[in-house]
């Protein structure tokens, strides 16, 4: 299993989206999120987009006020994950149009649906934006 979790956290350290592909208790999640965000916030733009934390490797990317953090295990290609984050953002951008933090907050479940299409069981399963978005568009139309 490559991807262990995907987090979106703003620069105040507030979680905006959290998806874990392995079970962690509420306390563990809270602690983990706090530690990771502190670590990533302390880094500057020039430094690597990868941070090791405990036994995870965190790949992160910042978009305006929002950090996208993906925790992966050792097998994963870090640079590819970095681009995967961008693909996720592009996909959301296509759906919401100029996506911002508030879009994700107001449509948390939609953001999750997109993730569900892209990642299953910790693996990237879909990278075609059309395929990712079609079920969501269908659902929009139906209701």
């Amino acid at each position, binding site marked *: *299993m490559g991807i262990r979790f995907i987090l979106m956290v703003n620069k*105040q*350290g*507030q*979680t905006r*989206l*959290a*998806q874990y592909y392995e*079970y962690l208790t*509420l306390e563990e*999640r*809270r602690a983990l999120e706090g530690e990771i965000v502190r670590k990533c916030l302390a*880094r500057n733009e*020039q*430094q*690597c*987009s*990868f*941070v*090791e934390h*405990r*036994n995870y490797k965190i790949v992160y990317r910042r978009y305006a006020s929002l950090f996208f953090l993906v925790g992966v295990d050792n*097998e994963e*290609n*870090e*640079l*590819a994950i*970095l*681009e*995967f984050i*961008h*693909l996720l953002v592009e996909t959301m951008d296509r759906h919401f149009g100029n996506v911002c*933090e*508030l879009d994700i*907050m*107001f*449509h*948390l*479940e*939609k953001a*999750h*649906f997109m993730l*569900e299409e892209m990642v*299953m*069981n910790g*693996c*990237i*399963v*879909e*990278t*075609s*934006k*059309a*395929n990712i978005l079609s*079920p969501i568009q*269908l*659902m*929009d139309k*139906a*209701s």
Partner: protein
Amino acid sequence: MDQLKMIGRELAMGSQGGFGQSKEFLDLIKSIGETRSKAEEDRIVLREIETLKTRLGNPNTPKFKLKEYLVRLLYVEMLGHDASFGYIYAVKMTHDENLLFKRTGYLAVTLFLNEDHDLIILIVNTIQKDLRSDNYLVVCAALNAACRLINEETIPAVLPQVVELLGHHKEAVRKKAVMALYRFHQRAPGSVSHLVSNFRKRLCDNDPGVMGATLCPLFDLITIDVNSYKDLVISFVNILKQVAERRLPRSYDYRHMPAPFIQIKLLKILGLLGNGDKKASEHMYTIVGDIMRKFDSTSNIGNAVLYECICCVSSIHPNPKLLETAADAISKFLKSDSHNLRYLGIDALGRLTKINPEIAEQHQLAVIDCLEDLDDTLKRKTFELLYKMTKSSNVEVIVNCMVDYMININDNHFKTEIASRCVELAEQFAPSNQWFIQTMNKVFEHAGDLVNAKVAHNLMRLIAEGFGEDDNIVDSQLRSSAVESYTRIIGEPILPSAFLQVICWVLGEYGTADGKYSASYISGKLCDVAEALSTDEIVKAYAVTALGKIYSFEIAAGRKVNLLPECESLIEELLASHSTDLQQRAYELRALIGLDAHVVANLMPMDASCEDIEIDKGLSFLDGYIQQAIENGAQPYVSESERLGMSNISNFKSQEQHEFLTHSLRFEAYELPKPSMTPQVPPVLASPTELFPVSVPYYHTEVNYSTTPVPSISSAGSSELQLRLDGVQKKWGHPSYFSPTSSTLNSDAAKIQNGSTKPDSVGSANSEARHVSYDSRKPQVEISPEKQKLAASLFGGASKSDRRQSSSSQKVPKNNSHAAYKSHVEKTATSDTGAQKTSQPPSDLLDLGETTGTSILPSLDPFKQLEGVLDQTQDPTSLNTGGFSGTDAPDIMSLYVDTSLRDQGNSTANLLSTVNDSSSLLSGFSDATNRTGHGGNTVAQLTQKLSEGPNHKDSLEKDATVRQMGVTPSGQNPNLFKDLLG
């Protein structure tokens, strides 16, 4: 409030359709978004929890409202608060007919619950139903949930449907079904093993999405069992070719790269399949080469694919052309300004140096730059690279760098990792005793409590054992230098507990061995430690035992012992300690000092922590005593199994009584045995009444009975009488007692270790040329001499430093460096042994530190095999006797209940002889005890022979026990011996 609701409803009906949100929701999100502090956020969430609790319970809540509440519940939990009160509503929502509500319900359930939650059982049925739905989106939602929530027990409930869905007409369903099956395979491989072939089938799916998803399970399957999938090599290569040739729909393109994520996955799989397989690798060369040529260096994703190609190339059977391309790519990475690319470059370099060590040398300055970079991630990666390229010529530089880095970081996780790497490298490649001891001191000083306890035991064993060969001078030098450095360090105010334990043990064992330090000096130091650490009982215990050793060595040497006043007071204090272990040790110490020299010399033999010990667990040395007792009319011991067998044939009534006895204490005297049983009572038996009062002295004699190997004699009556002894033998046979079966690292094993120093075959002229070219590539960059020096020591090693200078100054003639190189060869050659060559492939001329003896040693270690036979599962760290861990004292105490004087010394041999000694001293009984009384191993062996017919396993166990010694052995540091000797 009503008004608000109205507005909310209006909004919900508004432009956004089903995704419409109420005013209330918008306000909540806005307020969460606007919070500036965690406390404020918590207040909002807590208020929200109260609201949701009342709202969710209302049965008249409209569905779209309920969905909104669920999303709000998601917020509650995402922001770190417990939302379990609402889980059931999420479960309910999955039953909804409306797709959006259903999917939201499933989403909430997957986010809230783990697969072992009680509510899962309520969802399985829904999933089952939804998997059969006509609406493929419903099926997809159910598969998503199945992927998260189905556990091992519930797999059979949905498995048939999931398998059926693998052939669904919608590609999205097939894709998700593949992933669900994959998940089931992860959870319970056994339950779906017959369905694994489905993954192969799906690989040929028409839809690239399904094919791409299938690569995930296949990757896992291939990782587990490469050989079963070799037939797919050509398929994978063809797929990769098609992807690279842009045969996939354009929608999979990312940044003008054709399906890069699928390419990366395929390259990973090819890397696995081609590893060590020339034939399979040959199929891959063309396509991997093509991709590497065509790569797009301007985009991240292009570099990601390139990096994956390098990984693949370094994993499959080497191809010179591809390796060259890979090396070029690495140098591009390393020269990049982007830290991300440099990070990948360093990582790739680490992979490639395994195949071609020269590559690292080409990039030495880039590596040094990364090492000195402020970016911690990059630095850490570089340390990983250095770790991989450590050899005996550069170990000092590398380990020193690592130790310096370790001292400065706070993160315990990484500190531990780096510390254990330092230890590993130091053990493998240490160039000298002094250096090794000093390095270990540094590591322990700064990360002592983080490193594995095993490391401390390894160190102790190493000092105790020396290096497995007959060179006693070297061994004692090592000990002396250890003692010397420890006497210096012990004064430091704060030392980690693990380190102090090592110090105490070494000082106790060898503090006075070379005569440099007096007993009172060492014991003074030990007392200081014990006093300074009033809370650390383990260190105290170590210190007290060490004191005991120091004094017994003195006594044994015939010198008069004068206890230091602080030592006296320490013993006094410990005699009243709350810790029974410490008390015990203090009493022993005091008793020990009172004994005469001859006894003490046997109790505490000098430098005997590594001696082999034989444990006579049958206690056959008591045979004589037992014989005597039986002759005097005592009852023989009846083993438990036979007693139980007896009670079965004995009459019903007595059985009842037997049961009654086991359930409660019995206060009246025991019954006389039934006359019907008398035939079973052997003639030697005296009147059983003798045994009725169960008092302490009888207990002792019975203990001895229990070991008597006379199983054929038994009586039901005695079985009742001896109930109290049930389990005595068993207890003694408890695994924790026999655990010291781990092995001494004997010299045989030590000889098989592979060499650490193989000459570097890099031609000096060659490297000179390369060096020049490197310079010419970067003529404008000024390289500080310091950096160059570091680089030279890292990459060139000691022998090559001359050469390095020669190439930079261009003055020293070539043969000079050649000579140095030759001398290095000679030096290392002398340290080589024949065995080395068998363990290291001759083709590997360039020693890059990756091949170590550790992997070879265990397989050759006969004791390990023995342990395997015995099927013993104890943790080797717990194998030690009192001298090492105070915690197993209870075990030993239960062994020797009647021994007031017990040796907590370094070895069980001591323990055994102490028992014998003390028993002969105290009660002076039986010639058997006398026989073993002054016994070293030979006596124990003798007595062992006396014990009758041990079964096969028994004898094996005993054999293993022989290997037992004071310090936990493990074959982890074979090369140290070699290096230190060489």
